[in-house]
């Protein structure tokens, strides 16, 4: 199973090397990859039908409980088949759609890695694995949306999509960590057994929020929906594959997967019903204001996702069944409609629905596919769409007290969706062919084959629902934690209230189709409300955020070094000072201190004198000399307190530093009194406080007991293990030899850096530029 998941990634790596072979006629061969995987997954249909759950576990980071755990049950199988099956058709379609495109191989690479990521996502049983694949789908989606990377709008959409879904991914990670904290496992199957404990936990609310955050962003639920219409900038095969059939369903998948773990509580159900319900209605209504075919389809996809979330939220067995069926229904008809749109766009170079009609006369098979898909989307028998819609109505109708509201919502949604489906699937093909499209040609088989196949499947499953009943639908319902033995799918449910509602839906929807024509006026109408759309609000927020952070950054990091230092020190002073005032005890045990002798007093006095002379002298040479005195005094302190090695090193280094300074000093400018008196006093006060704090800190630490364990270990083993008696040296060259090795490397780098800085000359051009600049500045000063 791991191989199956990795195939997609391996194939895309493979394409890096041999990509050019896949650009020409051989590109169709790429579709063999998803086809092979599809066949591989069909062999699991039989065992899964029998209720088997296939588990595979590969250890990854066992110490953290993170494994590459995979689980194939009904839900995973349904998605896997969809991913590979539709993947195959999309791959084949692409080879014709993007024929001769410069970066076709790259496109296949992205598509293949997306397929791998998506398979990993739906098969993962470990939440960390799930998270990794979740993010991988976001990333591959980013590349695919931005595939036309010369188009700024494309790039912007890609960023938006990545931003939104990426944040969602972080929610997922947070949720995973939180659940792990409570259950001690990342395995979803194990979480299933601890469902009670999880639901009763005080952090249940947070967990639900995190999982919702992930699912709603990925599945484009209100108010995170706006990335999806933007994502339609991607080439149509991508919209088909990622943004209607598979990736956007990942959020729904997540909700379904966690229904048995987290579901059943009011907050879970009502939130899903509210969000899903609002999203489905909101975006269904939106479809009538669009004239771009892909825009219509994008909003109807969001609406369909809303329906799925809504059904998951209902939480009844009927609803799960309806959701399972509707996933298939939607994948079939929406993929078809997208592919059809792609064909229309490819052949006529427009997606403006106002300008499209009568294409039936040119591309009949495409028309048939479109019309069949529209019928399935409308839920007209004998398509599977009808079965799906009946089940959806039924589950809403049986939902306790809210039935009437839910019913109104879902029927209205379905009416608008029917309208959208008709506009996208039927309108371009009926009526009179406009003159501008008279020269349009029939596309190749590779283009019209896939949509026609998908549309026909929609009809086939409608006529004979038993094909998918036990193989796909029942295991999904089981996986969601409901009993599936009683389920029986049928096209005809008898003449009841649901059927009447169906008739109303079809009637009103069809009437709408004939009465409302997509027009620019409607589109402009909705555009006036853009300023309150979540997308716009987010953008405004972004702008404010950027300007505030610019202001903030420029305020604190204004390019003046001393400003940075002052702020850092000031912050430190306030922070440490505050704690000190509250915590410091100032208890010094005078007996434990070592005695002071006259040598030390003298040395200290010399040191202090040296320091202050360094600071206050006006002569650079004197400052450097005083600096040397300071170093030598410290050297003496090392001598006093049993550190001969340090004393020797300090002495040599001090000598060298003074030499170094003297060498360059006369090439450096004279001291200037640059700061005024006030600044100096201010800095003086700050430095004094800082010095006091360090002193207090040191004394405070000194009053704490000290552990010399490490030093004692080295001392005890110095001769026995390392044959050395000078412990400091043994530490340097033996115990911590690797550190020393790095240190001498760093020193070498510093030497090379010095050499480079001094020896390499500026290029003439740069020199002249700087010279000009300083000249200008001098002139300005005058």
């Amino acid at each position, binding site marked *: 199973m791991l191989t199956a998941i990795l195939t997609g990634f391996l194939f895309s790596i493979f394409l890096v090397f041999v990509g050019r072979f896949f650009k020409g006629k051989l590109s169709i061969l790429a579709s063999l990859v998803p086809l092979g995987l599809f066949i591989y997954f069909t062999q699991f249909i039989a065992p899964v039908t029998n209720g088997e759950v296939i588990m595979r576990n590969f250890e990854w980071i066992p110490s953290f409980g993170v494994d590459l755990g995979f689980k194939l049950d009904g839900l995973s199988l349904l998605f896997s088949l969809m991913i590979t099956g539709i993947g195959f058709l999309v791959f084949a379609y692409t080879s014709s759609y993007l024929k001769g495109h410069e970066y076709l191989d790259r496109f296949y690479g992205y598509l293949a890695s997306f397929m791998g990521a998506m398979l990993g996502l739906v098969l993962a049983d470990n939440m960390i694995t799930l998270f990794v694949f979740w993010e991988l789908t976001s990333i591959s989606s980013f590349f695919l949306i931005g595939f036309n990377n010369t188009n700024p709008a494309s790039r912007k959409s890609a960023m938006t999509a990545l931003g939104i879904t990426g944040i969602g991914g972080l929610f997922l990670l947070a949720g995973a960590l939180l659940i792990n904290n409570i259950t001690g496992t990342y395995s979803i199957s194990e979480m299933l057994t601890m469902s009670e404990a999880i639901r009763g936990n005080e952090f249940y609310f947070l967990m639900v929020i995190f999982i919702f955050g992930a699912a709603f962003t990925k599945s484009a639920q209100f108010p995170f929906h706006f990335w999806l219409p933007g994502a339609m900038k991607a080439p149509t095969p991508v919209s088909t594959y990622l943004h209607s059939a598979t990736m956007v369903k990942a959020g729904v998948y997540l909700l379904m997967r966690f229904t048995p773990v987290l579901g059943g509580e009011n907050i879970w159900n009502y939130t899903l019903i509210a969000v899903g319900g609002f999203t489905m209605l909101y975006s269904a209504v939106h479809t009538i204001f669009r004239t771009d075919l892909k825009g219509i389809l994008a909003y109807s996809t969001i609406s369909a996702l809303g329906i799925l979330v809504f059904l998951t939220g209902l939480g009844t067995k009927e609803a799960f069944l309806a959701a399972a069926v509707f996933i298939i229904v939607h994948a079939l008809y929406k993929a078809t409609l997208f592919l059809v749109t792609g064909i229309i766009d490819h052949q006529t170079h427009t997606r403006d629905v106002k300008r499209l009609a009568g294409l039936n006369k040119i591309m009949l098979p495409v028309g048939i596919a479109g019309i069949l898909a529209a019928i399935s989307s409308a839920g007209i028998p004998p398509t599977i769409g009808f079965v799906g819609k009946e089940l959806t109505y039924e589950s809403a109708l049986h939902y306790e007290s809210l039935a009437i509201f839910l019913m109104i919502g879902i029927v209205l949604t379905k009416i608008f969706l029917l309208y959208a489906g008709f506009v996208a699937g039927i309108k371009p093909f009926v009526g009179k062919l406009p003159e501008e499209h008279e020269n349009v040609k029939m596309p190749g088989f590779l283009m019209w084959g896939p949509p026609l196949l998908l549309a026909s499947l929609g009809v086939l499953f409608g006529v004979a629902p038993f094909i998918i009943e036990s193989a796909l639908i029942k295991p999904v319902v089981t996986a969601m934690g409901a009993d599936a033995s009683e389920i029986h799918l049928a096209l005809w449910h008898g003449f009841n209230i649901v059927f009447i509602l169906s008739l109303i839906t079809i009637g009103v929807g069809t009437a709408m189709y004939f009465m409302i024509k997509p027009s620019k006026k409607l589109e402009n109408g909705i555009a006036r409300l853009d300023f309150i759309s979540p997308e716009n609000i987010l953008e405004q927020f972004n702008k404010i955020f950027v300007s505030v952070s610019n202001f903030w950054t420029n305020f604190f990091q204004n*390019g003046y070094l001393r400003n940075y230092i002052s702020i850092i020190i000031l912050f430190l002073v306030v922070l440490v000072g505050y704690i000190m005032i509250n915590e410091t005890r100032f208890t010094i045990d005078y007996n434990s201190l070592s005695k002071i002798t006259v040598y030390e007093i003298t040395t200290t006095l010399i040191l202090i004198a040296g320091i202050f002379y360094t600071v206050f002298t006006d002569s650079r040479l004197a400052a450097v000399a005083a600096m040397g005195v300071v170093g030598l005094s410290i050297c003496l302190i090392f001598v006093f307190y*049993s550190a001969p090695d340090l004393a020797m*090193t300090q002495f040599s280094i001090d000598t060298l530093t003074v030499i170094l300074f003297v060498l360059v000093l006369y090439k450096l*400018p004279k001291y200037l009194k*640059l700061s005024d008196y006030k600044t100096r006093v201010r800095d003086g006060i700050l430095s004094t406080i800082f010095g006091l704090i360090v002193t207090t800190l040191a004394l405070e630490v000194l009053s704490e007991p000290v552990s010399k364990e490490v030093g004692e270990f*080295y001392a005890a083993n110095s001769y026995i293990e390392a044959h050395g008696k000078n412990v*400091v040296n043994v530490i340097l060259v033996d115990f911590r030899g690797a550190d020393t090795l790095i*240190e001498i490397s760093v020193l070498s780098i510093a030497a090379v850096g010095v050499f480079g800085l001094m020896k390499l000359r500026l290029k003439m051009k740069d020199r002249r*530029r700087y010279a000009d600049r300083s000249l200008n500045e001098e002139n300005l000063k005058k």
Partner: protein
Amino acid sequence: MEILLALMVGILYGTGIYMMLRRSMVKLILGIILLGNGANLLIFLLGRITKGAPPIIPGDSKVFTEAFADPVPQALILTAIVISFGLQSFAIVLVKRAHTVVRTDDLDEMNATDEDS
């Protein structure tokens, strides 16, 4: 003596910072050196100071028989001293280089990151 040393560390830190806040580049480097010395002394002090007992195993014995100064802070400081020399020389050269390029000693005139601003 510890109190005196702690005071010294404070003075070194304070003056180091004061020098770094000046606008002259030479003073900046002197400040860094002072601060580095302060840090060395602080580590030395916090490792506890011991008189007349260097961490060298005496004569023929294989382990210490009497009290000894902690070798760990000493090893730390030894590397720090040498590294700080590398740092100082690099900083000095950088300052010198910057001076030849932009012809100013005033750090306030070196705040532009690119030539346009």
